[in-house]
């Protein structure tokens, strides 16, 4: 039997199992401990899983369950596709990254990421002047940090990720609802909560995954 572990994210040390389907149909989501950390994992038969919509969705769903587990957990997310040859290999990598992990977990404690994309309508109507600044200033006040993401289509006028205190989530949700009502000609794509992908800076290289 394969010992490969597919990884979703890293949390403060805690043992639990989740009843949710993982990547590649995994039916058991559990934790592997290393010092003060636990990695959320599932079993998988390869160290290089193909990227499909379904698998990316499964990866995100598991992370969202962890984020909301028992009142909420802080998660350092792994990118899609990080699988390790064995528990030993995973722990070897965590040993190398432990300082960065500690500092990151401390920095993002109690936070979630929320995504806000605002689009102009399909009929090509131009947005009201200054709307971007009005909206983003308002959301910035409710967040701890924000990142500006790529405007990959002409219809996008805002594409930002916000780092928000878990306790402020309802207030942020309400602000989005108000913006939607106020500018009902615009289309708002509001997503999350996500683990703070855009606010962590830990890189675990692919070359480390197979080594031991």
């Amino acid at each position: 039997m394969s010992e490969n572990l597919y990884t979703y994210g890293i949390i403060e040390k805690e043992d639990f199992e989740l009843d949710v389907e993982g990547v590649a149909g995994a039916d058991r989501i559990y934790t592997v401990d290393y010092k003060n950390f636990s990695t959320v994992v599932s079993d998988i038969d390869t160290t290089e899983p193909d990227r499909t919509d379904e698998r990316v969705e499964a990866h995100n769903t598991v992370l969202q369950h962890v984020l909301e587990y028992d009142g909420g957990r802080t998660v350092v997310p792994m990118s899609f596709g990080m699988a390790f040859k064995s528990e030993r290999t995973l722990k070897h990598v965590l040993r190398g990254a432990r300082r960065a992990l500690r500092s990151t977990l401390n920095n993002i404690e109690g936070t979630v990421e929320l995504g806000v994309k605002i689009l102009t309508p399909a009929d090509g109507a131009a947005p009201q002047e200054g709307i971007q600044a009005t909206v983003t200033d308002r959301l910035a006040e409710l967040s701890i940090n924000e990142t500006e993401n790529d405007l990959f289509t002409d219809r996008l006028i805002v594409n930002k990720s916000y780092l928000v205190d878990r306790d402020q989530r309802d207030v942020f949700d309400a602000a989005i609802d108000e913006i939607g009502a106020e500018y009902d000609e615009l289309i708002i794509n509001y997503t999350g909560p996500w683990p703070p992908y855009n606010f962590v800076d830990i890189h675990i290289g692919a070359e480390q995954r197979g080594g031991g």
Partner: protein
Amino acid sequence: MFLVDDLLVKPFLSLLDILHTMAVDEMYDTDAIQDDIKENRLLYEIGERSEEEYQQRKQELETQLEMAQQIQEQMRGRIEIKQ
């Protein structure tokens, strides 16, 4: 006469060359294709594209991206050989 022919044809060849290069660049611009992939996903998420339309477009774009990456790879290889 030969000279006149040459002068008449050359500007057109240059223009064609430029247009061809522009078309090739656009067709194999992997960043632009990646943007189209993201846009397709977003339009599906906001309900402007049906699941069927989304899947069909996604498949087209992924094929286009794969081809563009191969061409870019070949072009890089050709440049390296020349050096």
